[in-house]
């Protein structure tokens, strides 16, 4: 599992997470950091130094517990909140700060929110919701506009589109509302779709329908999709790459099936053992109890070390670099560092 090109600790180059594809990714974030001030000079270290690339026609899943910073990451990528440091590149070009540049950016990067019951305005019809972005970002008007609305609704399997356009949100089920939210996002022909827990408020039996819709959009629209979720099984189902976040940092990333079949970071292993799995024959063993740390005063070194059953001396002192642990798979964990191999083996043998 070790790699000869592993750089020495402290001088680790930035690891860019996300699916590995040829060419320029549709959206790339470099060294994104967000600290929220909470008064008296204190800050919440919500997102720390995350570099992620979203190539077109791929789905990247961001998985983590609540408070891991996954939603903050999605919001940083939309440009809705300003990062403390770091930059965004759309098709390889830095995103400008002028109002015009930001407006162009919002038409290329769209966010689908978690709760379709509050993200739609109950006073307006479905058609209105989809017309808005078209009117704001294009010159389509009149009959052409109506035709476009119907076409968009059909594309998210709300047919007949004309009938749905006349309905109001309260007449729709949760799954249908989420489809409206997605159609609204597609209206401006975005390059990137950011979906923050898009199915967690939906009924179990209709979740797959929405996930399959995302899957289809990846192919048909060549969209770069970021799927933020706490459900690692659905991440495996939909995504090409899974990025696991803990306490504002990426602890592991790699191809989806590799992450679920051979997790290398102790936190990913903990998440997987805790997930309900009907195929399991006996109760899983949980390694690492407790809850995520406060992000105002995050633990020194590796942020997972207070919960980690494998914690070594170095883990308390130095934050681990992202180390290669498989094909395109990296884990930020000292257990995979060649310098600490002897100690890591000893710790693992004890458990």
């Amino acid at each position: 599992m070790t790699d000869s090109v592993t750089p020495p600790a402290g001088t680790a180059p930035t690891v860019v997470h996300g699916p590995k594809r040829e060419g320029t990714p549709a959206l790339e974030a470099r060294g994104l950091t967000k600290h929220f001030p909470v008064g008296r000079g204190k800050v919440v270290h919500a997102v720390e130094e995350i570099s992620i690339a979203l190539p077109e026609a791929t789905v990247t899943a961001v998985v983590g517990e609540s408070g891991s910073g996954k939603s903050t990451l999605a919001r940083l990528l939309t440009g809705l909140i300003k990062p403390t440091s770091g930059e965004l590149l759309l098709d390889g070009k830095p995103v400008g700060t002028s109002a015009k540049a930001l407006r162009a950016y919002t038409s290329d990067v769209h966010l689908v929110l978690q709760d379709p019951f509050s993200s739609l305005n109950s006073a307006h019809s479905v058609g209105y919701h989809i017309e808005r972005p078209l009117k704001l970002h294009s010159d389509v008007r009149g009959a052409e506009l109506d035709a476009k609305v119907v076409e968009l609704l059909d594309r998210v399997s709300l047919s007949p589109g004309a009938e749905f356009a006349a309905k109001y949100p309260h007449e729709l089920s949760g799954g249908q509302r989420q489809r409206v939210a997605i159609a609204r996002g597609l209206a401006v022909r975005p390059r990137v779709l950011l979906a923050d827990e898009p199915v967690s408020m939906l009924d179990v039996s209709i979740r797959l329908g929405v996930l399959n819709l995302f899957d289809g959009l990846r192919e048909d629209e060549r969209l770069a999709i970021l799927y933020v979720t706490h459900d690692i099984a659905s991440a495996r189902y939909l995504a090409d790459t899974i990025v696991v976040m803990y306490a504002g940092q990426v602890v592991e990333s790699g191809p989806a099936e590799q992450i679920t079949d051979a997790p290398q970071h102790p936190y990913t292993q903990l998440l997987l053992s805790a997930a309900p799995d009907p195929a399991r024959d006996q109760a899983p063993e949980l390694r690492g109890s407790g809850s995520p740390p406060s992000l105002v005063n995050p633990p020194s070194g590796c942020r997972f070390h207070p919960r980690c059953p494998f914690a070594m001396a170095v883990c308390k002192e130095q934050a681990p670099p992202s180390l290669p642990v498989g094909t395109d798979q990296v884990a930020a964990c000292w257990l995979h560092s060649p310098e600490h191999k002897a100690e890591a083996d000893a710790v693992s043998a004890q458990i």
Partner: protein
Amino acid sequence: MTAVQAGPVLGEPVLEVSKLCIDYGLPEDGGVRAVTDVTFTLRRGEVLGLAGESGSGKSTLAYAIPRLLRAPGVITGGDVIFHQRPVGGGPSQAVDMLTADAETLANIRWVDLSMVFQSAMHALNPVARIEGQLTDVLRRHRPGWSPAQRKERAVELLQMVGISADRLRAFPHELSGGMRQRVMIAMALALEPALVIMDEPTTALDVVTQREIIEELMELRERLGFAVIFITHDLSLLLELADTIAIMYAGRLVEMATATELVRAPRHPYSQGLLNSFPALHGAKKRMVGIPGAPPSLRAMPAGCKFHPRCVHAGESCLSVEPRLARPNGSFSARTVACTLQDGSRPTPAELALPDPAETAPSRFRTPAAAVPAPSDPNQNLTVGDLS
């Protein structure tokens, strides 16, 4: 019956619900029926998992059992019999919950039948300390206890759910979501009830916390022997903790079987669809479809089988005749299902006619020691046999 029973005594019923119907609003005011003809028996120490989508009536049912349903909810038919154990011991007495007066109900609620409400975030009083909220129920139901005794019990309860005693003076906002949920569970167990109804107790929690709480709960269940009605929309979770699973759809029970039977050999197309809605954590990736359509509105219930508009197997009879819960054709188990595919009138599709699993394994969280007295080590078993 003077000896105190340790552990669950399976077999003796603790709750019998039969033909329960619940409406919202009266029929003359355009009311809708939320729960229709629900019948089940819960035995002491049993964990019944109640799974269904939102609007399937599972929470309505949970609130109706202890008569906590608020207007416009009305119980319009059926029976709820609770078998109450008298304080001094002796055979349990059947109490008709639907006709019981306020005093009888007050002596059953929380003493014999308690509830863990959905979303602990809102169920605790934000301006009262944990101690006050935990001892409140003791003040009402253990009038003879001194404040010191009550506090001692509160400490004991907190420790039972893995919270240190110094959190007693904390306010709810000082606790994490998982801890608040643990406090709710401790509160429900304060008077050692025979039945705990849990309405989506872990839905708002992270998977790791959820797993910890479920493990704790199952351990406590082993030790204290209470029965549980566990309500959730997460069927994959139920499969790991329930003895019996009842699937609700549009206010009706459509299938009831042991957890193993349900996961290995579902008989109702809806149960099968639900099971196929959870992507697997392992194995080959395959495209899954879920269930087409959405659950029906209570105001526009389809005729016949309520699932037929979404069912791929729907036949002529499904459109008009509502199937009743019955043992599936060819099964020798105690399971029941409400589907015409299983009554022998139509050929059953192969995927809905898988053989029942031979042995119904006990819930996976159950420790071998607490189940039936069967030592896990066969050699040890021999020694015991030799000695006797």
